[in-house]
């Protein structure tokens, strides 16, 4: 299977799961709102009835952020911060929870979608995926160590020089390598999730290492998919950013349009996430080493044994012990 075939197959799978995507987007948004609303509350309580708010909406002033920090430090900020951190942690757990349902629905070949099936997947795979996330730290950690080593090497080579550019270029290269390494781990974890669902296995560690080996041995296909999806993301961002800049600071109509455009962009990103999993589902059977077929029974003619000794009645039979 080629990269494009995998993408096409994934698009087909995802197209069958529109309701699931809406549910995924909705819960993601709900969880994000738990973080966003208290933070926005800080701004709004500070500016809701102030004429300064309208001024900031016309042209943002960075000094306002410090003004808010100065006013809130030690007081409300100390109270809000732990809540926001907790909300971010819950958001993280929520993302893992939802991914169980999403992968399950993408692996499932039937045409129908039922919320029951989705949530059953969310619950069923939550702990496996959570363990998988923890194991993925090994790979991310390795990537970071590699990055450190590369930076150190660059520093040793050019760090004390009279020119910036070698170290700057080396920095770009190392950053690029780190992004690719992170993408590699992320892709491997996608395959691991698919494997855990397909096999209905609980062996997250084995899935993590197996998928990493799989991605490394089929680098062209697996990372090819990632690259195509990155191009999609760049296109989405390229369309979104200029449009959002144009819509900023406008009247009510523009604000509503902006909200719509933002959520379309987020929906686009949800689609890309589904595509990544969907492509992994498509590719997995082609790239995963086939398990050895069960051994068929082989007829082995039994060689005629030695003739039993002739029974000799009344002869030297041993007594049973």
């Amino acid at each position, binding site marked *: 299977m080629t990269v494009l075939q995998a993408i096409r197959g994934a698009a087909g799978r995802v197209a069958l799961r529109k309701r699931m995507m809406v549910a995924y987007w909705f819960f*993601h*948004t709900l969880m*994000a*709102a738990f*973080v*966003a*609303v208290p933070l*926005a509350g800080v*701004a*709004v309580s*500070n*500016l*809701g*009835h*102030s*004429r*300064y*708010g309208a001024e*900031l*909406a016309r042209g*943002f*002033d*960075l*000094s*306002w*952020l*410090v*003004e808010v*920090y*100065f*006013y809130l430090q030690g007081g409300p900020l100390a109270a809000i911060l732990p809540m926001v951190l907790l909300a971010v942690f819950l*958001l*993280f757990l929520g*993302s893992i929870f939802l*991914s169980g349902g999403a992968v399950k629905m993408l692996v499932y070949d039937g045409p129908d979608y039922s919320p029951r099936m989705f949530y059953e997947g969310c619950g069923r795979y939550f702990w496996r995926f959570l363990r998988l*996330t923890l194991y993925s730290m090994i790979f*991310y950690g390795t990537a970071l160590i590699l990055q450190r080593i590369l930076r150190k090497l660059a520093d040793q080579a050019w*760090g*004390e*020089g*009279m*020119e*910036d*550019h070698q170290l700057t270029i080396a920095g770009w290269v190392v950053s690029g390598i780190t992004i690719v390494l992170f993408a590699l*781990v*992320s892709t491997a*974890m996608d395959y691991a999730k698919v494997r855990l669902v397909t096999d209905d296995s609980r062996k997250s560690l084995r899935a993590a290492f197996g998928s990493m080996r799989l991605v490394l041995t089929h680098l062209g296909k697996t990372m090819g998919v990632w690259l195509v999806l990155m191009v999609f993301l760049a296109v989405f961002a390229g369309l979104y*950013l200029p449009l*959002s800049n144009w819509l*900023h600071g406008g*009247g009510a109509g523009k*604000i509503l349009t*902006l*909200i719509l455009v*933002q*959520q379309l962009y*987020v929906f686009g*990103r949800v689609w890309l*996430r589904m595509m*990544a999993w969907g492509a992994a589902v498509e590719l997995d059977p082609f790239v995963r080493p086939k398990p050895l077929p069960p051994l068929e029974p082989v007829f082995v003619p039994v060689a005629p044994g030695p003739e039993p000794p002739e029974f000799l009645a009344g002869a030297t039979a041993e007594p049973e012990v």
Partner: protein
Amino acid sequence: MRFVLALLACVACAHGAMSRQVASYDIKATLDTKTHIITGHEVLTWVNDSPDTVPALRLHLYMNAFSNSKSTFFRESGGQLRGDQFKGDEWGWIDIRKMELDDADLTGAIRFVHPDDNNADDRTVIEVPLPRPVKPGETIQVSIVFETKMPMVFARTGFHKDFYLGGQWFPKIGVWETAGFRYSTAGAWNCHQFHANSEFFANFGKYHIELTVPSPMVVGATGELKSRTESRGRTTYTFEQEDVTDFAWTAQPTYLREERMFLADKETTPQEVAAAAKLHGIPESEVRLSDVKMIALVQPEHREQMERHFASLRAALKWFGLWYGRYPYKTITVVDPPANAAGAGGMEYPTFITAGTFWKLPPESRLLEEVTVHEFGHQFWMQLVATNEFEESPLDEGFNTYSTSKVMDQVFNGMGELPLRFMGVNLWKLLGFPGLRSNSMNRAQYLLFPSGDNLLRPAWQYYNSTSYGINSYYKTGVALDTLEAHLGHDTMARVMRTYHQRWRFRHPTARDFQKVANEVSGQNLDWFFDQFFFGNRQLDYSVGDVINRQQRTPLGAVDRNGKRVVVTRKEAEAQDDKNDDNKNFKKQYECTVKVRRLGDAAVPVEVWIHFKDGGTEKRTWDGQYRWVKYTFLRGSEIDWVEVDPGRKYALDISYANNSWESDYNIRLSTSWTMQLLFWIQNISLWMTSLA
């Protein structure tokens, strides 16, 4: 006393010199690039321009700040400056091999003194008792043989590979302050140790420096290059400059050196000159600028930034010149230090400054321009109006922050953007981030520590380095913005120019600036200076309660047509209902506004109360008590209230609480909440991708 001082001043002024040339130097120095040692012979000519008899000399030996970790500089800075850490074992020091006055050997009498912190391990100031005191008006010549070891550069001066920046490298005399000079009550030396922050206070003088370096070196320095002679692989550069307070130099074989001329008549239009002359009420000839040779020494990898340095210098020469007075020297040299010598960047010396930039700095980032304009600006404050940076650093850094921001806004439309590019795409712009305005950036930094210290303190006595930076640079900049908003642009421009012109080539204090401000504005501004320059009052006005109470039919015994009538509740309610139903009935509201002073600074402030019928009431509150109440009987409710609507007081720590409006800003809250939600959704999706 004043007559004596004036007489001595005339004695001290050399022919045609612009300043009293109290301390002049004739130095022959040779740099050994293998040992990084400068061996030099200095002839210091010092004029006692005071009415005092001076029994001893005090000199700075600032390179000893880098001699070990026990020096005051190292203890205060922790061996780092602006993020650059001292590494390795290339320490620096300065030794006086011989010191003579009129054939008398003073070397044995030298002793280290520590006037600021009693740190016995600090060797940055020496005192030398003289065989005979120096009489008023007398000139002495001290011959000094010295040896300076350059440190690895991390804090302004030193070397990195074959790059050298020579700042604070020779024995330099302190300032004798007689009673009545600045804050002095009795004659004494003002000769501070070398501290982590601030480093300039010196008399004006004439510098003649002969610097010998290996011939491949490209050299730049304070002043004009008078001659260049080569002999046996070594080249001697002779630089001269009158009316300056210090001398610095740089050498590196790979510098790209270019010159441009600032041609005053081309750079300024007749209209600009006429406008400045009119504003200040002076003849145009006094405003006209002079031509200046601009020299740039740039790293080869920053070749494409060469013209940006010249453009920055042009902007600074023009606007500082038109605003405060013409730049009086013939040259200005800007130096771009190499990578790993950034500690030498962003520094100012007379007619010689160091820049700060990066490889491939995008044009939309104004970092290069900001640093070059700022360091040039010091020529007008630290150098020409030679305040004591140790004791009143805001008079240099803060005044310069204020002036730099004005040039940046005038010429470069603020500070531009942060250099955020990916594969040639300007992400800053693409993400819709706003351009950075200089005054907004100054205010943002001021708000990090708005009243933790008095604005004016000895530089080493602020709460910490951050407080030094905030007070010396940003709070002063914001305070001057506030003063300008209070006085108006034109008056403030006259205050600044008068202060600069009156104190050019002299050594003013903050009190001198206050006097000029009072005099030129014709106002008593002591309330401003006492609270914000010499005190640390915090300014915070706020709109408190806003109450609109509709007038209802009065209850109880009321006077009606000269008769007492008792209005019952029932009657009043019936009347009110009737009024409410009557479309022609004009409702009346008792509108009450309370404005509060949350901070401890009290300043006169305007309060505007706008009603829904379109009318506006304007009041001025002296701010003396903690709050004030305004009550109005109007036909409509209050629409909005604003304290300081003209945003005069940039020192106010919160703009948000300065106003109140009846309509809740749904547009803002919706827009910002959705914006935040959008970004958190994106972060969450990235987390999902990685997990």
